[in-house]
């Protein structure tokens, strides 16, 4: 069995942001469910938070590609 340990590393690194993105959208859905009229105000905030959390996964992707194979 051959492969690259980078892959496993990236997979592990993606867990954190995945949970973070899940939490952010869970909170967003919760907020909208409680107060539907706040949906428009919450959406940009949720997407910004999602973008910030996802940045970590993106750094992982970069490191996956730039690390020596």
């Amino acid at each position: 069995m051959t492969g690259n340990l980078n892959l496993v590393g990236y997979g592990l690194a993606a867990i954190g942001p995945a949970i973070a993105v899940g939490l952010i959208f869970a909170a967003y859905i919760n907020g909208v469910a409680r107060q539907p009229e706040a949906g428009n105000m919450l959406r940009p905030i949720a997407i910004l938070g999602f973008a910030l959390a996802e940045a970590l996964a993106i750094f992982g992707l970069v490191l996956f590609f730039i690390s020596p194979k």
Partner: protein
Amino acid sequence: MSFAALIPSLGSLSAEGDGGHFPPTPEGFWQPLVTLGHIGDYPIVITRSMVVIMLSVALLSWWLVSTTKRAAVVPGKGQHYTELVYNFVRNDVAKDMIGSKDFLRFVPLLFSLFVLILLNNLFGIIPPIQFPTMSRIGFPIALTLVVYVVYHWIGIKKQHGFLNYVKWMIPPGIPGWLLPLIVFLELLTFFITRPLTLALRLFGNMFAGHMLLAVFIIGGWELVQADTFALKFVALPAWLMAFVMTLFEGLVQFLQAFVFTLLAASYFGSAVADEH
């Protein structure tokens, strides 16, 4: 959408060596069409993505100009669709993120970014083209550099000078011993994290999504060519999965165009805001 139509272009992803090797590799995204020459070892070629992005620019220019040339108070069908997208960018993205005072001067750039990214992303699943331009990192970097330059430019102009700009980045009421750390983090955010994530998010999503589709479709193809009947049969669920993933990709492609535009708008918005 027929899978048969999907296969030829995606098949090229695995076109390394002889025959299709199953795991599609990043090398598959390098698709030169016309070689113009070499500078040293550096090849100067027209790649598939260059053709696609120019096609998208031509299509978008034609559509936008032809539907808005005689923009009427009561819109026709074409104008209606254009206005649907334009309204979305203008009101839901630009106005919400930048504020109704300054947003109008950013609308052309945001609208161009949105439609260019959206169409190029959707080309990733539209049969005759089926190549997401943004999976070649040069394009996201180009778009991000435009955003980067614009938001720093307006920020520095608004704060009258670079030092004031840096001073403005720091939230008030920070204790002295924390100041160097905060300055470092803010500079990192403004000058490195923001552009890097903006470009790489778009690239990563398009790259990974296309790779995923290739895995299912080429994998199915490999299974069909297998010797045993059982393996041939498994190709069907693989292609079904490819179909589902294609729909999912459509959603992701729209979402990435939206997120890119939204983040660009929020950077512009924070640059024209009075307080950090």
